[in-house]
């Protein structure tokens, strides 16, 4: 234990902003990846960038790991204190500093939840594009740490495409500001920091790019007999040069869960559903919609529903947004995997996922950002049954290996954390990992920032 460390932290932050009672620390022993747990030695709640810098400096002196944490919605154990240390909660650093429409950006502190920014921007004509599924709780700082995505990345890109600047505390406790003018005319350190999972620095303030709200939307929902018919439709839409704002696929398993929970009225033999949305100036949408409906029908869709009003659009999206939660009705526990393949390999990977589920006797249902080739298999199990947990973990590993075999990757938007660290050696050659290690050493020579994450120990 680091009781001199706790004493020092209390001196800097005030008694009430340092948690060290074991009973309270238990709440920080994992994030949304619950399979592995370990409590930190202390949790601190700094109120400013300067205080974060002080915490980092103090931890460095005491040789304690520093783990930044936002809302704790991460799915790969990025906030797990694998070697103990101090968890830095950024949730108190949560002011929206400025909404600057002339420069099409907002300046926000790391702890601002996505939903808070979305509300502040409502009515301005602009929004922040990344929309991770956890947007009700997740923070902008967390988005930056994981390079978060969401259903709309197909057209609008992921977090890295929407960060103009950051204020970041480096491993030596120094505070650096990057951006917000475009083109650093030097190395793109912002591009490195986004997605670095708290291992290169702790981002405390973000200059985010704002995206104009689309003038209009057209949302559609098509029901297919088979997953192949649905993915065929996706290919045809892309081949026609249409980039929808979102193309979400749900398979038979997840549809059953949604149906059981919410009774949307899907036919019981539905093999797959696509939720497709195009957005932009109204003038261009009619034609795009017509063509998409045509592609759906030509690929064998048995029903294509077109939302005629904003309310209908909301209803149509509801089944997708409620899908993951509905799984809770099917199973006491589940975890959401994140894999990605070249989009044309979607039918293959979904077939293989089904086979892998059968082999390991694990029920797996799927949602996918189909336009990106990004699958989110959801593995169902009972946490209380160790054998089931092990079988689910084995199935998860095998399906990620299959993603690699297809020329894909083991994560599109969740990150590596601890969960996927074992795959880094398979995705990358030793020279590639060495290059990444050099970057880490350049940023954080002593290695106290979120140790044990992203890169396997060499």
């Amino acid at each position: 234990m680091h009781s001199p460390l706790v004493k020092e932290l209390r001196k800097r932050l005030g008694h009430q902003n340092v948690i060290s009672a074991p009973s309270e620390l238990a709440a920080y022993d994992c994030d949304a990846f619950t399979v592995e747990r370990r409590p930190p030695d202390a949790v601190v709640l700094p109120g400013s960038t300067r205080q974060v810098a002080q915490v980092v400096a103090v931890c460095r002196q005491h040789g304690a790991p520093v783990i930044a944490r936002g809302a704790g919605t991460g799915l790969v154990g990025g906030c797990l204190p694998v070697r103990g240390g101090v968890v830095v909660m950024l949730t108190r650093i949560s002011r929206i500093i400025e909404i600057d429409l002339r420069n099409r950006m907002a300046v926000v502190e790391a702890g601002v939840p996505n939903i808070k920014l979305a509300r502040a921007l409502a009515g301005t004509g602009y929004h922040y594009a990344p929309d991770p599924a956890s947007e009700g709780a997740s923070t902008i700082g967390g988005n930056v740490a994981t390079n978060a995505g969401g259903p709309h990345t197909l057209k609008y890109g992921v977090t890295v495409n929407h960060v103009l600047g950051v204020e970041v505390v480096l491993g030596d406790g120094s505070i650096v500001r990057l951006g917000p003018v475009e083109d650093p005319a030097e190395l793109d350190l912002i591009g490195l920091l986004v997605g670095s999972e708290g291992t290169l620095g702790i981002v405390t303030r973000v200059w985010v790019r704002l995206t104009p709200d689309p003038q209009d939307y057209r949302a559609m929902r098509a029901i297919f007999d088979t997953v192949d018919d649905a993915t065929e439709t996706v290919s045809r839409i892309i081949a026609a040069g249409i980039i929808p704002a979102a193309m979400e696929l749900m398979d038979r398993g997840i549809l059953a869960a949604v149906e059981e929970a919410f009774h949307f009225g899907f036919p019981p033999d539905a093999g797959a559903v696509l939720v497709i949305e195009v957005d932009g100036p109204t003038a261009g949408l009619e034609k795009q919609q017509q063509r998409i409906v045509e592609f759906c029908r030509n690929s064998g869709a048995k029903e294509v529903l077109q939302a005629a009003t904003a309310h209908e659009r909301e209803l149509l999206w509801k089944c997708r947004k409620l899908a993951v939660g509905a799984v809770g009705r099917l199973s006491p526990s589940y975890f959401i995997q994140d894999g990605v393949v070249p989009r044309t390999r979607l039918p293959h990977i979904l077939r293989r996922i089904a086979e892998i589920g059968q082999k390991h006797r694990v029920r797996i249902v799927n949602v996918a950002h189909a336009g990106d080739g990004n699958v989110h298999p959801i593995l169902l199990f009972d946490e209380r049954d160790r054998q089931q947990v092990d079988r689910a973990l084995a199935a998860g590993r095998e399906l990620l290996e299959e993603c690699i075999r297809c020329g894909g990757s083991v994560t599109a938007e969740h990150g590596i954390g601890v969960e996927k660290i074992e795959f880094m050696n398979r995705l990358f050659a030793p020279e590639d990992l060495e290059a990444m290690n050099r970057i880490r050493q350049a940023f954080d020579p002593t290695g106290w920032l979120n140790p044990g994450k992203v890169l396997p120990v060499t």
Partner: protein
Amino acid sequence: MTTHNLPLTETITPADQAEVADAVRDAYRAGTPVYPIGGGTSLDYGARPTEPGVGLSLAKLNRVIDHAAQDMTITLEAGVTMAELAERLAAERQRLPIDVQLVRLATVGGVVATNSSGPRRYAHGTIRDYLIGVSAVDGRGTAFSGGGRVVKNAAGYNLCRLMAGSLGTLGVITQVTLMVRPMPETSALVICEVPDFDSAERLLARLVHTQTLPVAVELLAGPAWQEGPVMGPMLESSTARLLVGFEGGEAEVEWMVGQLRNEWRDLGVASPLIVLAAELGLMWDWLTGFSAGLQINVLPGATVGLIETLLRLDPGASIQAHAGNGVILVQLSSSEMPPTISSAVANAGGKMVVLSCPDGAAVIRAIKDRFDPKGVLNRGRTA
């Protein structure tokens, strides 16, 4: 190929990545600089290297490895020219939406190394936003890769972002994978004369709230822009010209052109010039071909103010601003830069292309030391 400004002892042309690695390894042992050369179109970018070294031409690394058209990705060697890339993609009605000068010479590797961009970066960003995989040889002669071939990938550090714009100082780029986009059905430019800088700012500020979705917002001023294709000479009474570009489906573009005319009419712009698809190729080339000595970046809202200042300091200068992005390209009227320009840029919160940056400079140095410990690669290219 123009290599006149590089102090080359010889130029070698390796046939593949292994030979690139051999060449860099030799240089590493000898401690001599290596200067990677693509199409030779940007060799005067940044500071001028002075130490004699070996030119390393990527001309033979010119194979397209895999155009996965249905996946909207393409993997190719660094020496492929931008023109060849464009042709390959056009055959599938696809494109890389990055404006680059001298496409018959410029190579993909060079464009990545300089993170080139042009007018349409307002909607499409820079090549950094399309680079999903990269292979390179570091300053020890070790080959490494980052990213992969999928459009969305959160595994490990983003080496693609690091390499894009690194000016060949971290590695000799040998192969890249790019995400590509469908070719738009049509495009258009809407152009107006701007009487003074207050009007310019008023028009730009209004564009923030336009119902349309421009792909380019260009503000042009100075003698270099007096004559151009299609538009005829700039009016005597004009201070600048504003050009707004659109791309998309026929109906969409037609509506956006009409909509912008309406929005501008309310601001007193009577009859803007509309340039439609047939003549647009020429216009984009013209807008992309501007030869500037200086690139300044500011927040978009500071663009007009800084242009006004720059023209006061050098009344003969010509300026192209990607005004929606705050990118200002300056062609000075003489080879001597007025010393007051740097402080004007600093006052506007801006940065110039070559800058001694207090922000992150130590980390940048540390990264470079680790990728290229003996300073073999492009020595002197950056600070």
